[in-house]
């Protein structure tokens, strides 16, 4: 394992060095803009997104009955991932008047329908676990 680890770390450092070399020498690279974006995604995730999610988890833990919690949290995870992915499509800033085949759908509607499906599945799961728990009141 010791040599496997050394090999992995050594190879990784080599690949990282190649990436830095490429970023510095490729004439198509706009290094400033890219570094800002690399920093922005980390700050947005670590300082904004994750604290909000953990706060939401705290609220769920406080106020949502235990029996429906797994279904609710599961559906929330799916909804969140789906919504984040869909935002650029819903906003549709990439639409071009000369090319109607690009982003041809109503993505707001598509997102709502897909979310409705996710929450319908979650409702069924929650209802079944509620029933199961109700049948075993001694537990």
């Amino acid at each position, binding site marked *: 394992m010791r040599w496997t680890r050394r090999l992995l770390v050594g190879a990784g450092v080599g690949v990282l060095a190649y990436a830095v070399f490429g970023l510095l020498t490729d004439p198509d690279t706009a290094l400033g803009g890219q570094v800002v974006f690399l920093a922005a995604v980390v700050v947005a995730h670590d300082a904004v997104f994750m604290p909000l999610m953990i706060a939401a988890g705290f609220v769920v833990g406080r106020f949502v009955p235990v029996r429906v919690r797994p279904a609710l949290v599961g559906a929330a995870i799916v909804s969140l991932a789906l919504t984040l992915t869909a935002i650029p499509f819903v906003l549709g800033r990439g639409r071009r008047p000369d090319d109607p*085949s690009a982003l041809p759908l109503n993505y707001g509607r598509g997102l709502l329908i897909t979310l409705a499906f996710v929450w319908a599945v979650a409702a069924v799961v929650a209802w079944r676990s509620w029933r199961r728990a109700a049948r075993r009141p001694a537990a």
Partner: protein
Amino acid sequence: MVREPDPPVAARRRLVDWLTTPLPPPPAALRRGPTRPHAFPSRLRSPRLTSLLGVALAVAFGTCFVTGLLDHLIQHPPGWFHWPSRPVQLFRVTQGLHVATGLATIPLLGVKLWSVYPRLFRWPPVRDVAHALERLSILVLVSAGLFQLVTGVLNIALWYGPMHFYFPSAHYWTAWLAIGAILVHIGVKLPIIRAGLTRRPRETVRAGTLTRRGLLAATAGAAGVITVATIGQTVAPLAPVSLLAPRRPRTGPQNLPVNRSAAAANVRTLAVDPAYRLVLAGPAGTLRLSRDDLAALPQRTVSLPITCVEGWSASAVWTGVRLRDLMALVGADPDGHEVFAQSLETAGLYTSTTVDPAHAGDPLTLVALQLRGEPLHLDHGYPARLIAPNRPGVLQTKWLARLTVRRAS
């Protein structure tokens, strides 16, 4: 007699000492907020959860890296690289896989980062220089991983405003950053990963709440829902349920999507000019062919997909002249010759391409005049376009102006 250690050994020992000498801890008074002990109460986090998600992420990033590197090599082939013209659908599969895997990775990375988020606030922040370097590699890993997913989604949504850089080059080099950081990370964490994968800790969460298995199922479910909601851009039968697909394989002029319109390419006037001639230059001389001249040559009809690097692809039926027949007209044997194809479009990234001997000689490669039995729509490259098997769409040059047949270098 006391022997001095060899100089290299001594130097190595000094380096190891320097790397592992404990740094002075910061004052305890600073240990507030998330850096407090037990600041993160969820008992769902465990090395096993993180290891399982990590393995899935390694596979996902590995798949994206290999398929993305392949696309890069096809578009910018170094001397040693030769991309075959068959199987016809191969590039369609690899590029579709690239985009679909990237999209499915979004929930995987989100939950993985949640599972290790408390580590961001570990106390003391750095123990020694080696630890500081390791944390720096984690920063690179997280940053590059998020960057790849965010820019990838922005690119398929054609939203370039937030990206103050050239996407293809940034996405390419950051992929190397991500893969390098992943290799380092696996090397550093290997003992924890191994323990996490082999030992199943007993469930520590409260009865009835979300379990590790439940969380993994939700994560997989999220990846599945995202895939179904978008894969219809590549897999046509699923288009009706893919409500978030950036493209529909059957939506566009002549029921085929367009990536660059004639208006955007600024060729509308030139393309319909009656004086249009396709210049065909080769070892035996130069021909100037009108569209009627091209239509008078033997016509072939083939079914070939258009595959965009943004992941969508669509099959279509094309009719036109075989490129190898045109090469023969100007005295070039298809073997050993390549074709330099130039568009009427003069400004842009893909105004010309080189068709290597494998594709130029393939009997399926056409200078197409018709799509689905009708003359090409202006946006599909009227009066004539290139269509070859197993090639990215950006290399299927539209509005052909000139074909130069030359010896392959």
